């Protein structure tokens, strides 16, 4: 790939984000006029040149139906989370005996920053969880979870985060991520069949993945 074609691909990759900035500008003014379009385009260019950030790798894939499902589900989760936390705060009986929250690690299967970010934001809004830290190299989210008392509940919660990731990948994840999910399912099925030994193997394989990822980051272009 020549340098010129590469630059064109990079610009094409940035185009949706640039359009998003223009749209935001028009949202802020609350009207869609030509003047707003022109000034928005100018400002968007200015902002992306002056405040330069490393380019986000968009996946180039968008499934409208699944995106709508994801957003609706997210809205429902927000409402559910609000009511649930409000109930925890307002419920008359005080039950603070013993630990009732946990900090858990959720190793995601995606290797895309975009999906990692979206999953982090989405899980921050859904019931009872706040992202404390992320580990970009291994795509691990560290979450503080409110209202869990047992390890069974923790496992349940971890599964719900992974389900959120699955919905997001289904909506606008890359093909590699989709394949990785399918692969993870296969491994999980084997693990369920053969028990703890396979789980250990899976942990080892994610560690291998991490080193792969580091190599990819070094070379940069392959992702």
């Amino acid at each position, binding site marked *: 790939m020549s340098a010129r074609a590469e630059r064109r691909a990079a610009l094409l990759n940035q185009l949706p984000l640039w359009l998003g900035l223009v749209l935001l500008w028009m949202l802020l003014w609350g009207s869609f006029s030509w003047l707003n379009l022109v000034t928005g385009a100018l400002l968007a260019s200015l902002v992306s040149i002056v405040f330069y950030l490393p380019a986000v790798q968009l996946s180039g894939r968008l499934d409208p139906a699944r995106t709508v499902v994801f957003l609706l589900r997210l809205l429902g989760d927000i409402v559910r989370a609000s009511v649930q936390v409000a109930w925890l*705060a307002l419920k008359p009986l005080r039950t603070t005996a013993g630990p009732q929250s946990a900090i858990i690690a959720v190793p995601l299967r995606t290797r895309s920053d975009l999906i990692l970010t979206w999953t982090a934001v989405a899980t921050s809004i859904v019931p009872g969880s706040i992202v404390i830290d992320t580990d970009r190299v291994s795509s691990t989210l560290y979450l503080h979870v409110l209202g869990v008392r047992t390890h069974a509940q923790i496992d349940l919660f971890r599964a719900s985060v992974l389900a959120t990731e699955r919905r997001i990948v289904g909506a606008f994840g890359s093909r590699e991520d989709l394949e990785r999910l399918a692969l993870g399912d296969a491994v999980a099925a084997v693990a369920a069949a053969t028990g703890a030994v396979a789980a250990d193997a899976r942990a080892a394989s994610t560690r291998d993945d991490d080193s792969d990822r580091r190599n990819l980051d070094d070379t940069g272009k392959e992702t």
Partner: protein
Amino acid sequence: MTPAIGDVVTAVLVLSAALMCLAAGVGLLRFPDVLSRLHAATKPQIFGLIAVTLDVAVNNFTLGTVTLSVAIVAFQALTAPMAAHLIARVAHDTDRFRPELLVVDELGRANRRGDRGD
């Protein structure tokens, strides 16, 4: 007939928003540590804000109002988790939390093991 229904909708949405704000305040008082209080601080208001702006947008259904409402909710929904994450990380890193309230602390474990990637 219609204005009466509109009034009822407004009343329900405004009251639920107010209840959510109250819950946030009470949660601040009753939850035992910083990390738990963060939950109270971030979540109920988003619902309250959605309810209120929905009502405003429905009552004054113009393009400008609706887009502005969407922008408000989007910004709040994006910035609240970000603030919560910042505070939570500082709280955890500087040990301003109460480990006895946690069932497990897998982040602390990972940090001690030193296998964090960044």
